[in-house]
Each structure stands twice: as structure tokens, then as C-alpha cells.
């Protein structure tokens, strides 16, 4: 039974990792841009949710608002700053985005203090689900359901719509998109904002589970990179599979060998890099 809980926890965690990583992965696929500020958007999403709920907003309002605000902030940063460095080598991406992440993190500390806080589970989902022996928090089940629906929606958006075809086309060749009359700069900004919004949403959803603290962004960033590396850069399905894999492994390992839970993830990543450098589902 304990394993069932750990697997369920792992799936919930893994779906959040997926939300977190898919934005990073799609942005990398589209722009070849390494974004170390991605965790900071997760951080911001969590803190905005925290802030709005403590001001008395319902979680159901705070979550979409936080997501939207993060997406807008990210789009503005992209349009003002980041698009200027896409063509530079990856070292510059890292320098600029690490700096950006630190700035955001420090601003979070200035605004909300270094101690963090907790976000209560939203109204209507504060209880537990009981089926015989099986007892599980409602909110955690809800996050699994919501992220599964979102994953389906995202897949449809990317693979089934004209908009998705435009994004995929842009990631293959920006200059060919320009020849068809598309302003790739604007597409880039939109996709970047969208990816950051997903990270913000992951933060908002994670807040009632794990609370908020200023360094959660760094942790999220490293997990997101592990997921992207294991799944394959730029691969949507890869992010989903790897997110779930990492979540479940981490969660089950906390029962088997708590100290090694983190370690296992990085060992897994090292193995993938050694054996399949493109990741499980990465494309050439």
C-alpha cells in the first residue's frame, strides 16, 4: 500500500515536473536558447499564488492570475532583453539567465522575506478521498487530474492545430517561416511567455503541496534540466515520460532510501547522457 501512495505521489510530482520542463524544452527546441531563469518563473508563480491567497483571493482565482502574470513578465523580459542574445553562444545565455534568476530570487526575498510560507489547499479540496483502505489527499488527486488534462490540451495544441504547426515550423527553420510572412520575433516572444507561464502554473500548483520558499526555484531548475536531458531536448513526449519517470523514482526512493532519492535522479541522468546522448525521445 505504501508503494501505491508513493507511486501516486510520484505521478503527481512527475506531472508538475512535466509542466515545468515542457516549457524549457519547447523554448530550447524553438530558440536553441538555454534558459537558467526558468526555475525563477516557477518561483514567481508560487509566490504570486501565495501573495494573492493571503490577500484573500480564492486559490481558483489566484492560480490562473499567477500563471498569466508570470507569462506576461516573461514575455516582456524576452522582448526587451533575451531575444538580443539568442544568436550568441550558449555561455552568454547561461550568464544572462543565471543573472536574471538571481535578480528575480532576490526580488522575491525583498518582497516577501527569506522565510517562505504556506498556502492552504483550496476550498473544496482540503479533505481526503477514502476508498476502503485507500486514503489520499483530494488536492493531490486534483493536481494529477488537472495536469493530465493540461498535458492532453498541450499535445493537441502543438500537434493538432495550425498554431502548433507554426511553432514547430519555427523551431525547424525561422528563415523559412519569414519567407511565409511570419514575424518570428513575435512568435518567439509568445512561445517564451507561454513556456514561462507553464512554469508559473507548476509553481502555483506546487505551492499548496510544498509551501513557498525563496530557493524553490533553483531546485525546480535542476529538476527541469534533468527531465529535459532525460526526455530529449525539444521533445514534448520526452518531457512527459521523463517527468513521470523522475517523479516516480524520486518518490519511491524516498521510502526505500531517502538519502539517495536525489542521487538516483542524477545517476539516471548521467546514464542517459552516456548511453543515449539525445535523450530517450530526443530528435536528431
Amino acid at each position, binding site marked *: 500500500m505504501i508503494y501505491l501512495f508513493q507511486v501516486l505521489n510520484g505521478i503527481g510530482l512527475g506531472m508538475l515536473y512535466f509542466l515545468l520542463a515542457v516549457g524549457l524544452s519547447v523554448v530550447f527546441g524553438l530558440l536553441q536558447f538555454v534558459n537558467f531563469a526558468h526555475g525563477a518563473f516557477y518561483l514567481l508563480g508560487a509566490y504570486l499564488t501565495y501573495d494573492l491567497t493571503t490577500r484573500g483571493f480564492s486559490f481558483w482565482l489566484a492560480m490562473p492570475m499567477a500563471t498569466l502574470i508570470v507569462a506576461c513578465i516573461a514575455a516582456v523580459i524576452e522582448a526587451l532583453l533575451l531575444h538580443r542574445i539568442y544568436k550568441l553562444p550558449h555561455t552568454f545565455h547561461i550568464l544572462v539567465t543565471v543573472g536574471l534568476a538571481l535578480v528575480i530570487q532576490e526580488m522575491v526575498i525583498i518582497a516577501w522575506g527569506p522565510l517562505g510560507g504556506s498556502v492552504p489547499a483550496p476550498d473544496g479540496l482540503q479533505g481526503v478521498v477514502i476508498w476502503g483502505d485507500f486514503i489520499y489527499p483530494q488536492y493531490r488527486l486534483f493536481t494529477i487530474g488537472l495536469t493530465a488534462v493540461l498535458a492532453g490540451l498541450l499535445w493537441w495544441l502543438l500537434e493538432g492545430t*495550425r498554431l502548433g*504547426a*507554426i511553432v514547430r515550423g519555427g523551431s*525547424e527553420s525561422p*528563415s523559412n517561416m*519569414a*519567407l511565409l510572412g*511570419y514575424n*518570428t520575433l513575435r512568435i518567439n516572444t509568445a512561445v517564451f511567455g507561454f513556456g514561462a507561464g507553464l512554469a508559473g502554473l507548476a509553481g502555483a500548483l506546487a505551492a499548496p503541496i510544498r509551501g513557498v520558499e525563496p530557493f524553490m526555484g533553483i531546485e525546480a531548475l535542476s529538476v527541469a534540466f534533468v527531465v529535459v536531458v532525460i526526455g530529449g531536448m525539444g521533445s514534448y513526449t520526452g518531457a512527459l515520460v521523463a517527468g513521470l519517470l523522475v517523479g516516480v523514482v524520486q518518490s519511491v526512493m524516498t521510502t526505500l532510501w531517502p538519502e539517495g532519492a536525489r542521487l538516483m535522479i542524477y545517476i539516471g541522468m548521467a546514464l542517459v547522457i552516456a548511453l543515449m546522448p539525445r535523450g530517450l525521445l530526443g530528435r536528431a
Partner: protein
Amino acid sequence: MTPALRLTDLHSYYGKSHILQGVNLEVGQGEIVTLLGRNGAGKSTTLKTAVGLIMPRQGRVELAGRDVTGQPAHRIASAGLSLVPEDRGIFQLLSVEENLRIAERRGSPWAIGDIYRIFPRLEERRKNGGGQLSGGEQQMLSIARALLNGPKVLMLDEPVEGLAPIIVEEIVAQIRLIRDAGVPILLVEQNLAVCSQLADRHYILELGRIVLCASAQEFRGDPGAIDRYLGVKA
């Protein structure tokens, strides 16, 4: 009548190399005009400069009388100058249908149904990935995409290069259909037989300058010019 496309004294560079050294040419309404010349003469560069993929240092690009010089490629493309690039520019990871759908544009006289009438092979292969097409099919897809964009002028960069003769015939017939539908075409092509079948006028480019402009008739009657500008002997 205002020409569909007019390039005036166009200069452009790759780094420090001065590639186009004052190109002047016009494509009239309803015309097919070819741009001939040896390798490295600047033919592809002329097309890329016209559409804004390369910024001209000097000169003017006018599309149906409107000055579009110096605008970014996506603007010039939206204004109606469509380039079918030499590498065909197919999105390999998108299906044929997706390749077409992203090119659809409100206000274009061409819809996907018209495209399938001209290029029935594309309809047969619409679920296939762009990367699975033969060279000829890729070329058709690339031309089809450009049409969906509703071009005022269509520029084709070596559309039949490396294709089997039977496919070349098919594409030549399709290009003719497109011209008959009223789309002016600027064609860069090494295959002289194809050029003389299609073109109303020819320009010859040498070292970044236009050295000859002739109607199809004058050109046929002047084999010396062909030898002088296009032959391989010195």
C-alpha cells in the same frame, strides 16, 4: 503599367564580398522572366536580397510600385513577394497538409483546394511528413506553399535542379498554369531548355551586374550571347 517587381541599382554584400554590383531588372504583370548566369554570378543573391533575407546596401526594391527596400523578410513576404528557395525550405517534421496550412492566408486568391487541383500528388501525400517526399514533390510543395501566401510575384530558385526529366515536365506545366492564373514569375534556372520553354524575357547576370536583357525571340536568335555569357569555354 507599373511592373510587378522592379529592382533598381541593387547592391549587396556577403561580409566584405561585393556580390551584387548594381542589379536592375523588372518583372511585368503576367510575365515569366528568367535570370540566367554562371554559378556565382549572384542569381540566388539577387532573389534573397529582393525578399529581404539579405539587406541591400544600396538600391531599391519595388513591389507593384510600392517601395519595400530594407524591410525585414517577413514584411516583404506578407506584402506579396514569395521566394521558393533553392533548398525548397520544406518543414521536414510537419506533414504536407501542415506545411500548406501554415502558409494559408486570408485574402489570398489561392485555397488548398486549388492547390490540390494543380498538384494532385500533394493531395495523395497530404498525411506524409515533409521529410518523406521525393525531391520533385518537395519542390511542388514549396511552390504550393508560396501560392497559398497569395503572391504578387513568385520567385523560383532553380525549381527543377536535380529532378528526373518526367518530373521536370510536370513542374514546367505547373509553372505555366500558375502564370496563366496571372502570377508573374521570376525564375532562376540553369536548365536552358526549361527557360526557353517558359520565359517571355531573359536577363543575364555576370559578376553581380545585368549584362543582357532580351526577349525570348531575340535570345533564340543570338546563340553568340548564350555562348559568351553562359558557355563554359573561356
